[in-house]
């Protein structure tokens, strides 16, 4: 099977994730869209590993997963902190740095 199909699927998923980041205003859903983009990148890495016949791509995807896990922990803690002070998870309301 042509491995280009996997790359096209990764491109579609990345596009949907980017669209979600732009269009949604709930901070948690925006964050999930970022996760979807990271997953698409991982799929591209795994495809690259198969097409080159080496395992380096899979190791890269593994490191992406580690970074994503760390990022989720910190990001969700920030969202909870913002929710505590502003009582809202909407990204329109977080304008503390604006003025």
């Amino acid at each position: 099977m042509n491995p280009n199909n996997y790359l096209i699927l990764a491109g579609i998923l990345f596009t949907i994730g980017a669209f979600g980041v732009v269009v949604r205003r709930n901070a948690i859903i925006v964050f999930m869209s970022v996760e979807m983009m990271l997953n698409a990148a991982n799929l591209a890495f795994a495809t690259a590993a198969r097409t080159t016949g080496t395992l380096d791509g899979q190791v890269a995807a593994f490191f992406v997963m580690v970074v994503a896990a760390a990022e989720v922990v910190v990001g969700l803690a920030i969202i909870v902190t913002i929710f505590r002070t502003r009582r809202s998870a909407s990204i329109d309301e977080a304008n503390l740095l604006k003025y």
Partner: protein
Amino acid sequence: MNGESVVFWITAIFAVVGALGMVLSRKAVHSALWVAFAMVNLAVLYFTLQAPFLATTQIVVYTGAVMMLFLFVLMIVGVDSSDSLLETLKGQRLLATLFGLAFGALLLSGVASTIALRDNGLDVANGDYGGNIQGIAHLVFNRYLLAFEVTSALLITAVIGAMVLAHRERWAPRKTQAELSRERTFTSQVTPLPNPGVLARHNAVDTPALLPDGTPSQASLPKQFRETSHEDEAAKEVTS
């Protein structure tokens, strides 16, 4: 059509459906479940890409840990928090749709027209050290050892950051059991407070219970869900 392409087309369609469901569903909980669905399908795709270790990690780390963390945070923030359909920025949806279509066209035309990949397969690489996991372990603990060590610093930093961000100082000393029971018995509200959601349309924690005359009771809510303007009234309700 061999087995791989059958699996690919089924799971690829499911993954795209899951991703679209995440973007299009209004409630955050539905979005989280759609993402978990898409991620499980991606794990199946990793199996077809001869990456069993990645597939297992995907299920354990992403659907097991990350998405469940999302669900826990959703329960803190309020399960009922859904986006309003009102656009605060004028024309945001239209522009975002145009951006998405243009970005997708750019990305896919690049992938489809310029790259012609050869499928070398991982049978040799996976067989070198007796298996996929052994091969990855060989790479991680030799060529990528430094990156692996730096990862530990990243994880420690993330843990400490999350603890610092989520930590709250205790301003007043903790009440003893005697003080609590005195507080409870010397007010007029000796019985427990009403539960959230009683006689209301939902039973979520952020839905106030309805009193017999149909007015919502702020006293039934946990403190962080009470409306600030009603806080004094809620306190009055309890004491009067």
